[in-house]
């Protein structure tokens, strides 16, 4: 068994920032990640980092834009903490050497981005995430922070009190992909989950193959609620054949969207008469699909994003990476012809319920970054708000996990017996995994080491079972069916029959997963086994996304329902929460927080 003060699970932007922060507080921090940190999907982020740095801009303005973009489903304490802290965290990256794009006077450049009332998006070419990731990994190397790379965390070691609010997390169980060794990692102070996105629940996604919602699913089964899972962002400009992302920076620099008739539809059909292409992402995605459904798409599948008029020099200087992506993955020269684009799954606004310190309801368990829901992005994330979230809340989670007092949190977390519950007539949660190791395990013990050891034993049993099963179903078939039903039925436009169909399909996928078998019997670098475990996690998060979408009878942000095409503030200024409830999931609600000590965010009509 390994032992550290703080164990960070995941080596992307949030995980690296958390580990550095914990280390700076004097803690012995270690990162455990299924990829090497530089392989993390933060590296694929292109556009930028929003921060109110300049005269004429203010944190209040950034907070207001974020809350409006969120369609008033975000929590004010999270939004304000974020907007106030983003500037210092962004400059911290500059002090760590990040190669930002620069103005003539040598200061970092900022550009306009969708939904922002001030050009406050700092960037490093169209590869901002790559530079952020590498800059922070370099600082991890500098500090000598321990990294266990290609170790896959499969389970949290949590006590098993009846009420999740009373439980404590003492560490994790991880599996060394290289050797097959299963080991406990005891965390003396805390575990920070920073496992990133869950886009692999869909088959057309900008997310990496590694983005399988592991942290969300593990925290969920340990008793932490999943929050606002139905809020999935579909990015309006992804390449049709692969889902590779074309940055919003293209539109920020002046790129224009055209339909098959050559019309600038964002304006001509009134989707966003003020901001046009730079309206919020949900608005642009719906506009594109409406055009395509109305027969004005190209090949009935996509629209055109044109940047040719920007000129070769500007394209090369600021968007060069886009030229490479369009060429390599779609065979299109962005300087010569418009690029085909369509909406694709991009980002999960929801996730592990945490407060503004990154803490969950389980003592010693934290989450930050895309896997967490603090809730900053509410029903729709603004472009350029994900990267600063990683550093702002990654740092806070790392510090708090290291034992630093961040004051009393204003956001409440954890199951609440008095909360309003949803009435739902569909089976959820069962069947679960192939062995009975889901519920938190301790066998009555309270000794942290014994709890970690008991969890290791349970994981050994699960993995042995998966490896011993003969002639079963290949997880890839289950995953593929799941991805297809999610893309078909839980997409940009949602209807009740389609959502119910998806829940049926997920139920069937759960049944099939009972017979899953890992054909590769080797203990050495067994990706078959890894993907099989990931698929289980995808089943749980896909179910939560779908059931959240089914109960939310309104249209808010990224969530559009055919039967309810209005935002319903009288009833729905509240978060959707799904609790595992030891295998019998419950759906319940908690009001969103639109007031802070300083400000009040009155819901307004969201027009761009």
């Amino acid at each position, binding site marked *: 068994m390994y032992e550290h003060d703080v164990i960070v699970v995941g080596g992307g932007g949030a995980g690296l920032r958390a580990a550095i922060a914990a280390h700076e507080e004097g803690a012995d921090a270690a990162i455990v990640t299924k990829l090497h940190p530089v392989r993390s999907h933060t*590296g694929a982020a292109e556009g930028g980092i929003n921060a109110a740095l300049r005269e004429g801009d203010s944190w209040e303005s950034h907070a207001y834009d974020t809350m409006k973009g969120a369609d008033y489903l975000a929590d004010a304490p999270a939004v304000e903490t974020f907007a106030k802290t983003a500037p210092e965290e962004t400059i911290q990256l500059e002090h760590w050497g990040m190669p930002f794009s620069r103005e003539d006077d040598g200061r970092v450049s900022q550009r306009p981005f969708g939904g922002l009332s001030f050009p406050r998006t700092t960037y490093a070419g169209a590869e901002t995430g790559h530079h952020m990731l590498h800059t922070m990994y370099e600082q991890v190397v500098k500090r000598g922070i321990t990294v266990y790379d290609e170790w896959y965390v499969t389970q949290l070691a949590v006590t098993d009190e009846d009420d999740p609010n009373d439980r404590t997390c003492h560490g994790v169980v991880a599996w060394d992909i290289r050797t097959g060794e299963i080991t406990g990692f005891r965390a003396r102070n805390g575990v920070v989950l920073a496992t990133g996105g869950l886009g692999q629940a869909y088959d057309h996604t900008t997310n990496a193959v590694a983005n399988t919602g592991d942290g969300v699913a593990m925290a969920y089964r340990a008793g932490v609620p999943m929050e606002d899972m139905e809020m999935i962002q579909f990015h309006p400009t992804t390449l049709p054949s692969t889902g590779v992302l074309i940055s919003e920076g293209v539109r920020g620099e002046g790129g224009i969207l055209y339909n098959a008739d050559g019309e600038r539809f964002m304006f001509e059909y009134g989707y966003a008469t003020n901001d046009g292409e730079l309206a919020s992402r949900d608005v642009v995605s719906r506009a594109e699909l409406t055009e395509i459904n109305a027969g004005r798409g190209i090949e009935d599948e996509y629209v055109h994003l044109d940047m040719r008029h920007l000129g070769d020099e500007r394209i090369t200087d600021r968007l060069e990476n886009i030229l490479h992506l369009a060429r390599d993955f779609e065979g299109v020269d962005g300087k010569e012809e418009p690029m085909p684009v369509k909406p694709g799954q991009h980002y999960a606004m929801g996730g592990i319920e945490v407060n503004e310190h990154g803490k969950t309801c389980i003592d010693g368990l934290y989450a930050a970054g895309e896997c967490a829901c603090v809730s900053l992005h509410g029903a729709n994330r603004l472009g350029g708000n994900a990267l600063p979230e990683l550093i702002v809340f990654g740092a806070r989670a790392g510090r708090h996990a290291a034992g630093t007092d961040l004051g009393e949190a204003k956001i409440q977390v954890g199951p609440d017996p008095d909360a309003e519950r949803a009435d739902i007539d569909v089976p959820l949660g069962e069947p679960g995994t192939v062995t009975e190791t889901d519920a938190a395990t301790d066998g009555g013990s309270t000794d942290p080491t014994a709890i970690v050891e008991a969890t290791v034993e349970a994981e050994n049993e699960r993995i042995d079972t998966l490896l011993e099963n003969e002639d079963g179903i290949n997880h890839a078939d289950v995953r593929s069916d799941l991805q297809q039903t999610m893309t078909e039925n839980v997409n940009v436009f949602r209807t009740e029959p389609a959502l119910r169909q998806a829940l049926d399909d997920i139920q069937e996928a759960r049944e099939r997963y009972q017979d899953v078998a890992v054909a590769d019997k080797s203990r050495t*670098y067994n990706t078959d086994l890894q993907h099989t475990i990931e698929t289980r996690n995808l089943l749980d998060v896909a179910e939560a996304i779908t059931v959240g979408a089914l109960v939310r009878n309104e249209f808010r942000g990224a969530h559009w329902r055919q039967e309810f095409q209005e935002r319903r503030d009288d009833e729905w200024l509240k978060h959707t929460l799904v609790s595992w409830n030891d295998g019998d999931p419950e759906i319940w609600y908690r009001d969103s927080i639109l007031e802070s000590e300083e400000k009040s965010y009155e819901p307004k009509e969201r027009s761009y």
Partner: protein
Amino acid sequence: MSTQTPDTESEAQTGDDSPQARRLEAKDARAEAREAKEAEADAAAAADQETVHLKVFRYDPEIEGKQEPRFDDFHVPYEKGMTVLDALIHARDTYDSSLTFRHSCRQAVCGSDALFVNGNQLLGCQKQLDELDQPVRIEPLPHAEVVKDLVVDMEHFYDQMHAVDPYFDPDETPDDELEEQRQSRENREQVKMSTRCIWCSACMSSCNIAAGDNQYLGPAAINKAYRFYFDEREGEQKQQERLEIIEEEHGVWRCQTQFSCTNVCPKDIPLTEHIQELKREAVKSNLKFW
């Protein structure tokens, strides 16, 4: 597609309707359906659908039959726009789930899937199949220990990267936490290409010198040193320290300008030029002291 429907079969059984029995039956039916599907795919492949022939290196130290390295043949249905990585994923998910390779982002930024394809180091996700002669021969990167199939041990590469102080280390930064250091556009331009490295190790694998001298820092690590050496935000003292690192016995002077690293770099970094520029800096610096 499938010739079996599990539901009709299980409904016909009335004797035992326990969930366990139903599951087992459904499982059998699905196994048959799967076999039918596979046969169908094979038939399609044999008939008119265009396929791509892959010859893939296989090795697993634990599995009998794979302990001796061998090549397996896969015939993958071809679709326009398909990359080497797409074909590998199809082969794994359809024919042999033990086929093992690293991959994640699918867009040439995570650097996981550097492979040796038809004798060249490249990223599987970045290479279109229609640009390759068949059969497409896919091997792990040369000059690295093979862990399994196409997965190589990256530790040596990471060690070399870590050996050059691969982090920004300025004399001081502004006291004001909201004030950035200044950097000219020209200076950013000078280091820009060097910052694009994704640590895929294709360059290291292609380098004859690195193959013969295990202590050679290698192109990627020297490029990393370049990235900081020329960054005007760092101080002179640190610059000097960086020169000392890259000037040592297994540093820049080992490079014989064969340009193989530059030729294989998936991010088009002019690695050989960067190494030569650092050689010049080292010479200039030594002249100063003499």
